[in-house]
């Protein structure tokens, strides 16, 4: 039993089911990020937790109390909206204390709570201004202040950073993380940005098509994606997917594919050998993150299984800290993340190091993990 329990939550609009039996238990103090492409149902789920949308079947409970049919204001939650939703006719101070006023908190207490929050978020000089006179980042802070002042059980964030410019977004991201570490509050956070999801969360729920595809820590999601969708959605540049044919040779399993010239190459599969024993001749998709495909000197020295394969470079993209090298394996473009000063030029034939410890295999039919 978690602090915030979502069990079998389903949402339908008429005959269309947009959210299918979602099960998530959030512990107290956890930072859960719901991530997925547009229309995956993540905002709907958040609105259901907030009580802004009805739950069609299943149950959502906070601290063991069922929230089905409970009015949003009675759930002891606070929400930060994508557009901030600051009341345009009120000053920053009034915006922050409006919720307390509605809940009948006396004025001296309201003022004290407001002062505390304003100090925490460093918005004291803004208290008497109207939202229209604030910059995007300041509005964002005020919106967070409005949520914090209520001291709620659960904070809900609906894509709070997507209206900020790139630099401010990174700053505010750090700030939210700091705030979470300092206050230890329970947060459910919706975003479509996988980097936000990775950096902020203690756990991630990757959603697609109304299903939770995978629920796990950022590391689990990144290293052990449950299916092709999670593998490609998380990570940038996204995971390389090489079509291979499996071959069992004694105890060892090999993934056979071709280099850019069409010559056969063979990669030793490091993990999940037992499950693959019967799969000789079956085709599969080998997933490898760009940082697990690198130049020989840049390869992880602690990796147990590193395969060296020579291949032609198609494109190089120096990004300052790294150089991204594009090549072709099995007829698909693959991106290798190499050291900034790695020796690679378009047209050159260089040796690529596959860190097979990190390789994952997917079934091309079901798109689920094989090993």
């Amino acid at each position, binding site marked *: 039993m978690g602090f915030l329990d979502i069990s079998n939550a389903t949402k339908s609009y008429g005959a269309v089911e947009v959210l299918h039996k979602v099960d998530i238990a959030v512990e107290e103090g956890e930072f859960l990020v719901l991530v997925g492409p547009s229309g995956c149902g993540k905002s709907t789920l958040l609105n259901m937790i907030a009580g802004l949308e009805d739950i069609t079947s299943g149950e959502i409970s906070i601290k063991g109390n069922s929230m089905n049919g409970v009015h949003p*204001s009675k759930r002891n939650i606070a929400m930060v909206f994508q557009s901030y939703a600051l009341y345009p006719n009120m000053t920053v101070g009034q915006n922050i204390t*409006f919720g307390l006023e509605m809940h009948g908190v006396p004025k001296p207490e309201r003022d004290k709570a407001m002062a505390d929050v304003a100090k925490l978020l460093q918005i004291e000089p803004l208290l008497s201004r109207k939202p229209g006179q604030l910059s995007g980042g300041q509005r964002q802070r005020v919106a967070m202040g409005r949520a914090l002042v209520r001291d709620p059980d659960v904070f809900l964030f609906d894509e709070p950073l997507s209206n900020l410019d790139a630099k401010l977004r990174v700053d505010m991201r750090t700030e939210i993380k700091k705030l979470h570490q300092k206050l230890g509050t329970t947060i459910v956070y919706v975003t479509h940005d996988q980097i936000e999801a990775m950096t902020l969360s203690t756990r991630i729920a990757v959603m697609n098509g109304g299903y939770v595809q995978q629920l796990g820590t950022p590391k689990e999601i990144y290293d052990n994606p449950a299916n092709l969708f999670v593998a490609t959605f998380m990570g940038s540049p996204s995971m390389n997917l090489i079509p291979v044919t499996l071959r069992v040779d004694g105890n060892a399993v090999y993934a056979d594919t071709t280099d850019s010239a069409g010559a056969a190459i063979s990669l030793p599969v490091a993990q999940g050998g037992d499950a693959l024993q019967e799969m000789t001749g079956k085709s599969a998709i080998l997933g490898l993150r760009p940082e697990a495909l690198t130049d020989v000197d840049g390869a992880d020295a602690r990796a147990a299984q590193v395969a060296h394969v020579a291949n032609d470079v198609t494109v190089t993209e120096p990004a300052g800290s790294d150089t991204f090298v594009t090549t072709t394996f099995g007829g698909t473009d693959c991106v290798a993340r190499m050291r900034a000063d790695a020796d690679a030029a378009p047209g050159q034939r260089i040796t690529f190091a596959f860190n097979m410890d990190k390789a994952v295999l997917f079934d091309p039919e079901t798109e689920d993990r094989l090993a």
Partner: protein
Amino acid sequence: MAIATADSAVRTSRVTRTFLYLVLLLFALFYLLPFGIMLLNSVKPLDEITGGNMMALPSEFTLEPWRKAWSEAQVGVEATGLRPYFYNSLIMAIPAVMLSTFFGALNGYVLTKWQFRGHNIVFGLLLFSCFIPFQIVLIPMARMLGIFGLAGSTGGLILVHFVYGIGFTTLYFRNYYAAFPTELIRAAQIDGAGFFRIFWRILLPSSGPIIAVSFIWQFTNIWNDFLFGASFADFDSQPMTVALNNLVQSSTGVKEYNVHFAGAIYAAVPTLLVYIVAGRYFVRGLMAGSVKG
């Protein structure tokens, strides 16, 4: 080459601009001409007008016609001037404008933020009152006023104007609130504000421009209405428009054109004032910056 083009562009724009302003000025003058003539003749003694020189400036300036139209002219049975009818119009128009604006706002709020099944049909039906010719409703309305015991009273006129104003005010507020961010309503709900609190504290304070529009529109229409005033009012509740008609149409004695002109201006002043005072709110974007950057 580029410089020459730019030069000729500047020259053309100056010529077109002059032409444009000239045309605008002409239209403005043309439009103001009747009002100018009314003003001129309302400050002339009668014999200057009957002498045949309507367009000339007054050779003798007098405010006597204005005084006479206000407090002395024979409108009804007694020589009261237009003053009591002016007050009739005020006590009819102000409550009717306020009621119809308030309920239009409430309707708009419900139709956009608390939508229910069939809300579009309800809205469509409300719009009927904008487009039906009012002659159709005269007799049923007279019957209803009789049943309510409001026949021939200012209260009856208020009710009629209030009911027929709701259509337009609902239209205005519905369209304004449709663009009002729903996230604000949701935020207020989470903050614990109920239906009416959200309306009072969040929506109405952000509705300045549309309240001004509704107010100007309703006041102008109700103040200028003749049909309902002539049909449903008694002698002691007749509005300004009906009284003005009676003044001008009276068939006894000399036609005092200067007094008629002054009376007509009295009838026009309130709507002009409302426009001048509230018109500036038309363009004020009170919502600027509330949502997104």
